[in-house]
């Protein structure tokens, strides 16, 4: 997958989480869905919202905010689920709202300062500025992949 490769040109899907702006490589985004009630998975980590029915397949959904250590989402009609595919595994990411699609070049992206730690370590792969707003570009494999490790 191309999400971590700082290729010459890439398009980012930007979205909001607790008044902050994040982005994902658009190539890993499969679709964007409105919020539907998720069935809880017992004994799952708190950031796992549960599973939803995505046209007949069972899709796990995580609260991306909680995953990144932000306060939990209030359930809100305007929340959306970004369905992403990472290493052949589909996951839904619950976010506040999707904002835009922006094209960036490799030079626009800067590595994040080495401050982050804990569960969200390595989750932000780079930073970029768009219209004077800082956008955090997520490393999808690190964001989604951790579930497997904690579950195993």
């Amino acid at each position, binding site marked *: 997958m191309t999400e971590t490769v700082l290729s010459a040109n890439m398009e980012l899907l930007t979205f909001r989480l607790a008044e902050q702006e994040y982005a994902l490589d658009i190539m890993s985004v499969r679709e964007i869905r409105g919020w*539907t*009630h*998720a*069935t*809880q*998975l*017992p*004994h*799952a*980590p708190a950031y*796992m919202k*549960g*599973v*939803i*029915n995505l*046209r*007949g*397949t*069972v899709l*796990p959904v995580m609260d991306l905010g909680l995953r990144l250590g932000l306060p939990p989402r209030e359930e809100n009609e305007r929340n959306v689920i970004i369905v992403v595919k990472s290493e052949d*595994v589909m996951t839904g990411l619950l976010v506040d709202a999707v904002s835009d699609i922006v094209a960036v070049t490799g030079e626009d992206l800067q590595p994040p300062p080495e401050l982050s730690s804990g569960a969200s370590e390595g989750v932000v792969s780079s930073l970029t500025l768009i219209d004077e707003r800082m956008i955090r570009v997520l490393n999808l494999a690190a964001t989604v992949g951790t*579930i*497997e490790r*904690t*579950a195993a």
Partner: protein
Amino acid sequence: MSEENDPMAEIRASFFIECEELLEALQDGLQTIDDGAADSETINVVFRAVHSIKGGAGAFGLEALVRFAHRFETVLDEVRAGRLTIDDEALKVFFQAADHVSDLVRICRDGADAPDAETAVLIGALDQFLGDTVPEEDAEEPEIEFAPMGLSLDLDLSDASDETEAACPDLDALPPPPDFGAPTGDTAYTITFIPQAEMFETGNEPALLLRNLSQMGDLKVTCDASTLPDLDKITPEVPHLSWTIHLQTDVEEAEIRSIFEFVEGLCVLEIARETGDGGSDGDTTDETPVSPIVDISSETVNTPPPARPPDPPQAPTAPKPAQAAAPNPAEPSQPARAATAPTAAKSVVRVDLDRIERLVNLVGELVINQAMLSQSLEQSGLSPHSDAMSGLEEFQRLTRDIQDSVMMIRAQPVKSLFQRMSRIVRESSAAVSKDVRLNVIGEGTEVDKTVIERLADPLTHMIRNAVDHGLETPEKRIAAGKPAQGQINLSAAHRSGRVVIEISDDGAGINRPRVLQIAIDKGLIPADAQLSDTEIDNLLFLPGFSTASVVSDLSGRGVGMDVVRTSIQALGGRITITSNPGEGSTFSISLPLTLAVLDGMVIKVAGETLVLPLNLVVETLTLSNQDVQMVRPGNQVIEVRSGFVPLFDLGASLGYREPLQNFDGAVVLLIAQEDESCTALLIDNILDQRQVVIKGLDDSFHRAPGIAAATILGDGQIALILDPSDMIANAGATALAPSPPLKTQGVSA
């Protein structure tokens, strides 16, 4: 299938699929012989199977397989010709040889090394039956026979090899004019033989049929070329000639017919017995005995080009006059043809499993969609008599029918599985020097393909156990007044929507005092435990239990019945034991027909909707506070018909809520465990009983104990499917000791 672009790989794959079928036919035939129900056709079937495998293997240059199959075939041919009778000893070798053929096929498919030593041993065993009759040239024959055709990929495989053989007796080598010195028969037949348009499509060659007839006796053949069109109008793929044959012979009419059996349905064949002076009758229509040759040569003009081989140097060994009485080397070609013919006749379609899988999934979607539709129509307040509602009812019925039919596609008879078991019995009984007979009942019973695949290991284990531990040694059996040969029965049957597979032996039964002692010695149960017979029997399923005092090759490696039980449970099945000392034991496995749908009970716990497998629910009760007794904090029991059943708070254990304190109005489900103990599952409400489509939960998900899978309900929401035994086991064995089995059977059965 990964190399789909490679035509060779595809043909190879289909050869191996065909091999599976042929091996099954081979096993079947041998089994029939073993059962004493064999007729002359049975040995033919066996022979053809081996022959076809050899033919196909030759085309792919699978030499080890060709060599062995050829030797096996030679022995079988002796049997077919009546020069060798099958006794027990021979049958045993044949079974081994069949097993070895199937090993070799597998090895060729997977590209492993051939077990030459074993091959040599078995060839030696087979050769014993041949005695001096084995023609030396046989050993060399395969290469010559098949080599030239190795690249004719566009031909059907088995046909390709047949053609080579069929064509081997070159035209010039066709039968010499009937030998008038041959024993003159005492019966005369008039045979009318009119090939139909399709006959050449199956690779049949009239000349060979006529030649075989000529070996039966005095032959006069008249050819009718009246329907032969002008040369420019000839369709070479279609036969234009027909024959009238006068045969003076001492053989039975059935035998004459047998020559034509491979063209049955492809020609008009009339065999009439000529009354009175057969000889003179022949004379009247005598067109001279030379006519066959003339006819046949003209016939070959019509033969499709592939039938002409590139003149194999040594091939025309057939018509040497000296061999007139010997088995006709061209004969094998005909059974092979017949072997392909029935396959074509059975209208069977081979479908990639993935496609079926997709269809099953789609039908699952349809079922869910239908449920959603009916739910929303009901909510919209439509009159139940409106067109939409009656249409919906129809839709519901159709959906159910489609679902059933699709499930049927996946269903397969357990036969292939049982055949593997008969091999296990043969091998394992040989390993422990016991004489064991496997009786198979209900091998036509159909079960979901996945179930069959996943049953193989547990069943193998249980069969080995039965041979090794279940049955006594021959000496002990005789001492106990039983026949020396032990019996193992393997049966399958449908019983109220489930499949029940039973493995029973007529051995000594479970030695309960010893089982109990071992369990105590190993610390699996307290030394002073008072257990019922059933409970002792069920100790076998405890992890780490193995009774064999001598660890044999066969079983007793410590991976015991607990593994078997786990695999059966994973399939949604249950396993039970019944045993009578001195009379034997029966293990019975009850399985769902399919893994794709489940009869479930939809329940509500703390606002969440969950599904429980219906077959586990023995009884449902509504509680009041008085029914619940506390044993110690956090450990409660309820009283059911003067027995105490541990109470398990589902909502609390799933982390949905705090443990319930007020039980008034709460509902409990009595859940049957595999060891026949019961647990009361505390829930809020029962919503529905319905079939649900099982959706597997990816392993990448967070997987909680007790959650088996998920399903999608009528409102589009996902509900989790519970595995109560797993959950209860994980909730801590300390808190919940299994209760004794309930005495009364529940209502939902």
